[in-house]
């Protein structure tokens, strides 16, 4: 945990940003604002044309970012600058075809160059045939964070959790990303507790967190709360400043 700078016993906030949304400069500014407003870690998504785990809000942001010229090379440059200027942990999230298409070795050298703290690839299951990817994470001591879902079979869940490094990312419901879907269910919270029993790694919870109150309600249950789609919605109506206010509210209310 110390490696990621996550204080034990305290709920940390990870905020999500799509690299290049709405354009390269402003997505960088947005990420910096998140960090300065108190977000403990930043999740930077490298946009993909067919993002399978994302709902309409993030999907649209992916498309806008691609149309604005975002590429994996530029996204890693942004991550590097973020690491240098904020000092906060930055995790890169993307889909399997991005590392696969640009070349796994090249992808990893870009990740190392950018000083990324970990990788999150939700459509690359731990039992896939892409062994080279897993070998590279081990070789470079790169955190490989699995996203696990509440209706996974118990054996499979345990295998995925054990294969994870850095932290484990739990989704609070079976679904795709997207905010404003009502309260966090008891089933979702129970799932986080189940995953905690399988691992000593920090456990993150995301998918559907859309208010400071919902974030704070994870205190004592999860180690990290992840907010994504909601921040894009706030950005679309209120810009960077309101995103900063929202982040401040999340972190100040639970101190």
């Amino acid at each position, binding site marked *: 945990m110390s490696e990621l700078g996550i204080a034990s016993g305290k709920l940390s906030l990870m905020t999500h940003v799509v690299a290049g949304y709405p354009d390269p400069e402003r997505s960088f500014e947005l990420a910096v604002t998140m960090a300065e407003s108190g977000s403990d870690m930043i999740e930077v998504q490298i946009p993909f044309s*067919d993002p*399978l785990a994302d709902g309409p809000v993030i*999907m649209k942001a992916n498309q806008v970012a691609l149309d604005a010229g975002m590429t994996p090379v530029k996204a890693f440059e942004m991550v590097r600058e973020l690491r240098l200027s904020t000092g906060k942990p930055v995790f890169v999230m993307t889909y399997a075809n991005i590392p696969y*298409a640009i070349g796994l070795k090249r992808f990893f050298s870009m990740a190392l160059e950018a000083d990324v703290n970990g990788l999150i690839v939700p459509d*690359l299951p731990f039992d896939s045939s892409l062994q080279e990817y897993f070998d590279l994470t081990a070789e470079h001591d790169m955190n490989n964070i699995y996203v696990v879902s509440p209706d996974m079979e118990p054996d499979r869940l345990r295998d995925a959790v054990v294969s994870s490094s850095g932290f484990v990312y739990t989704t609070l419901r079976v679904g795709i990303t997207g905010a404003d879907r009502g309260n966090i269910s008891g089933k979702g919270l129970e799932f986080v507790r189940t995953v905690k029993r399988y691992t000593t790694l920090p456990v993150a919870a995301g998918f559907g967190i859309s208010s400071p109150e919902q974030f704070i309600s994870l205190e004592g249950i999860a180690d990290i709360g992840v907010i994504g789609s909601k921040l894009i919605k706030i950005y679309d109506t209120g810009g960077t400043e309101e995103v900063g206010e929202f982040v401040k509210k999340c972190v100040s209310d639970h101190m």
Partner: protein
Amino acid sequence: MFKEDQYFGEFGGRYVPEALSSALDELDCAYRRLKDDKNFNNELECELNNYVGRPSPLYFADNLTRSSGGSKIYLKLESHNHTGAHKINNAVGQALVARELGKKVLIAETGAGQHGLATATVAARFGMGCKVFMGEVDMRRQYPNVYLMRLLGADVIPVPHGTRTLKDAINATLKYWIENIEDSHYLLGSALGPHPYPAMVRDFQSVIGREVRAQMTEREGRLPDTLVACVGGGSNALGLFHPFMDQDNIRMVGVEAGGRGDGPGEHATRIAVSQPKQGIVHGYLSYFLQDENGQLLPTHSVSAGLDYAGIGPEHAWLYKEGRTEYVSVRDDEAVKAYKILARSEGIIPALESSHAVAFALKEAPKHHDDHIMVVNISGRGDKDIFITAALTDKDNWKNFLKKEAVDE
């Protein structure tokens, strides 16, 4: 730890978010059990015979054979099936599996609308709910099928994202499934997607090749020399090819959509290009049309059913192993073949199948009359009237549409 039975060589697999893993395991497990179950197979056969209208004819195209002056050309007429295409074979099979799983709603993606139509049809037949996801662009160009799906009771949901075509419909259906896994079955329409779909869809379509084997043996006392089929995702081609895989001397040719040119966005040729590119999209590893950063490229084909950036993983493997070959046929060649088949045999093929016909017409004269070629007519051409009439009889067709619109 990786599961070899989910792959064709390095291709295929199950590259999906974990939210889908249980549903795919459940489906895989049920299908493994049912595929060797006597009662299931009896019921499937009964539906295929009495509802779909199988076996479909293997027709000797004697006029076409004479005019091309080479190999004997046989046509496997999947166009004679209920709903007019091979898609119904798989739809019936998967609907029976879904019923065994206790699912109440069938969900499906569709491009041209043929698979959506087949799904809506079996949903009506088996008393299940139905939701069909269709890109907005496809809905506009295939409105007749939208109307028919709705007539059959299906909810046709426009997909406004991305390129608003088949690939986006697949994304939308997978996402809907992730969110509604308990009561819905994703009835995927081609031999692609995460395991077990590629193998299951191929199995349900293999009735095509099994029938050809029996029909050809009866007619000619031997097996054919060449098999030809168009390849979008690739289910009609695998259905024809697969039962002949034990015959090393049979040539198998998949015909891809060459569109209107070689540039990005002008065609849907995944393999028959100078440098096919592997990728991981829609849950499977195969060849995809993509840019250097791994973003899917837009595609074009005059035939909506071939207008897709990926190809089923078994095709990718068969190609890499050198077992099957792939060629590309342009829009104008396909439309020409469409007209030739209509005039010479009184058979109007789907634009998809017309690609296979176009290749056969080029290939047949290279052989003697002791060579036997089978071309899969995967569907019939009625559905394409808004495209073909606009291409081949533009003025009359436009006048008709204008008049119809004014009469309203």
